[in-house]
């Protein structure tokens, strides 16, 4: 995957609770079996009417946020279905960092595997960043430094598991990392498992 090291971008403010993965990527597009080129379907029914015309008031249809690489979202962003098409389509739309008070867990995990950074923030920080985003300010997300720098120069800490941070900074593929580091441990576990639960293998 593409590493995530640093991203300086304006941020789109969208403080709506419970934006589920059906809103991010409607189910009727799920028969597509590719993972690339899905950006046109991202937030489809919020972006477009039944005739395919853009809703002018939707934040990602408005200047300057149409170009936003960061989304400041509401609580429980990405709840619902496990569909990884949700982060794939957002990535293709150009959004690589999402900041919210809380995330749907499966969605959050899916982001890390695709070079995307979900950042959980407290309520006060969330309100501050929403205001920055609404003003069209540039946020500087620096994963190496572990900070988000606001336009006034103040910094917000990015809280992330060290392992996920390393994977994002280096663009490591999780499957290959597991195979390279833990191949022996998996073999050992399986040997013990066969002895302990022989009925599982039959």
């Amino acid at each position, binding site marked *: 995957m593409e590493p995530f090291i640093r991203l300086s971008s304006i941020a789109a403010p969208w403080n709506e609770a419970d934006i589920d993965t059906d809103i991010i990527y409607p189910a009727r597009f*799920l028969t597509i*079996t590719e993972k690339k080129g899905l950006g046109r379907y991202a937030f489809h029914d919020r972006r477009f009417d039944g005739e395919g015309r853009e809703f002018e008031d939707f934040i990602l249809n408005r200047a300057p946020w149409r170009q936003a690489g960061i989304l400041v979202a509401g609580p429980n962003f990405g709840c*619902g279905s496990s569909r990884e098409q949700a982060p794939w389509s957002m990535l293709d739309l150009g959004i690589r960092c999402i900041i919210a008070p809380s995330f749907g867990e499966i969605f959050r995990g899916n982001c890390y595997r695709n070079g995307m950074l979900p950042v959980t923030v407290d309520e006060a920080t969330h309100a501050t960043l929403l205001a920055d985003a609404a003003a069209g300010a540039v946020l500087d997300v620096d994963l190496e430094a572990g900070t988000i720098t606001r336009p006034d120069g103040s910094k917000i800490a990015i809280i992330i598991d060290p392992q996920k941070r390393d994977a994002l900074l280096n663009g490591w593929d999780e499957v290959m990392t597991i195979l390279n580091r833990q191949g022996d441990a998996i073999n050992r576990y399986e040997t013990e498992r066969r002895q302990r639960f022989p009925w599982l293998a039959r």
Partner: protein
Amino acid sequence: MPATLYEKLWNNHVVAEEEGGISLLYIDRQMLHEVSSPQAFAGLREKGLRVRNPGAHLAVADHSVPTRNRDKPIADPQARAQVELLARNAREFGLDMIGLDDPRQGIVHVTGPEQGFTLPGLTLVCGDSHTATHGAFGALAFGIGSGECESVLATQTLRMTKAKTLRVNVLGDLPPGTGPKDIILAVVAKLGSNGAIGHAIEYAGPAIRALSMEGRMTLCNMSIEAGSRTGLVAPDEVTFAWLKGRPLAPQGADWDESVRYWRTLPTEAGASFDREIEIDATRLAPQVSWGTSPDQVVPVTGRVPDPAGATDPEAAAKMTKALAYMGLTPGLPIQEIIVGHVFIGSCTNGRIEDLRVAARVLKGRRIADGVSALAVPGSQAVKKQAEAEGLDVIFQQAGFEWREPGCSLCVAMNDDRLPPGARCASTSNRNFEGRQGQGARTHLMGPAMAAASAVAGHIADPRDYLGEA
């Protein structure tokens, strides 16, 4: 120290402890379907990897399959290609595949348990958020993304952070006319749509012990609607009796040995949970959702709530948004909400007991004029059993269409899709915007209420139809 069911399942599957509190967890089994698996197989091909343990996986198409004309090729070319791709991938990598014409076909979360692929004590995953269903057997089961499917195919493991534990104690007996769906809707309403993020739920208490396996599956199924990936019920005699003799369940001496092990799994007395909540089952009325989030639930005797009464501005904003999408006004009695569509099915309520209770309501009655109603059994086995009991006749005489198994109107990926503005009484699990079709409106409820609503033409109290008011 006394351990919880979750901790035992977790500890038994740790392959290695990694930095930052992350564990590499062994995954015993995986179910694969046509929507979340293609990109996982593509990943294996790109990296030149094989499937580590082909016997650990079971593939079955459910999401995009049509529920009628199953004797013909799938009409939608993209859905047809997707289902064919699953079969091709299964063949190429040597995995078991249940085809569309197979008598075992069904929704992953109905077929897996039926076949005995789901067993207590296992870790089981699927690229589907409703995988917590299998937790009803005391299996550590959770939904994953496609990238994680690839990990499990290639390594049989996942990197995981241990969840906190949350016990939901459901006390007392369920009153007549209520069922497991009413418990879980009340639990989701109480916890909130994000209230259980980071927690593994264990459902416990007398009302849970009294539930059948079908009921326990309904319950665990919707754990994700409160934000939890995992819902669990401790295995007991009900579990063992249900599983015994299933095609993939252990047989003979293996069965005895596995039951001995399974009996060691339940949470021990004195084990502590990070959180506990209580639900008084004796006070439950049939529950129904009014909004666009599964925590927006009221008793069927209630009214559409007023945002003016919300606890904070954010909660009020969420309610206002839902009211606008649902086309409802605060204060409206729930039973005055007119429905044009009824759906009985899904991995939540597409099992034999769900069809039986709906048929009890429908027997000798007709659905109201202007209502179109679908009954979609969760699997071919459920369908066959229902037909053996004559339930298909009851449904059809009442005016329901009797369809072939699949996810159908729960996810609206196939041609079962509602038009904009349509309002549906549905036994599925999500009332999200557009879930049953762009602009369509969903009210979640149990199968008895869905059947009663079909007859009444508006949301109706099932107790008025079950002779138990």
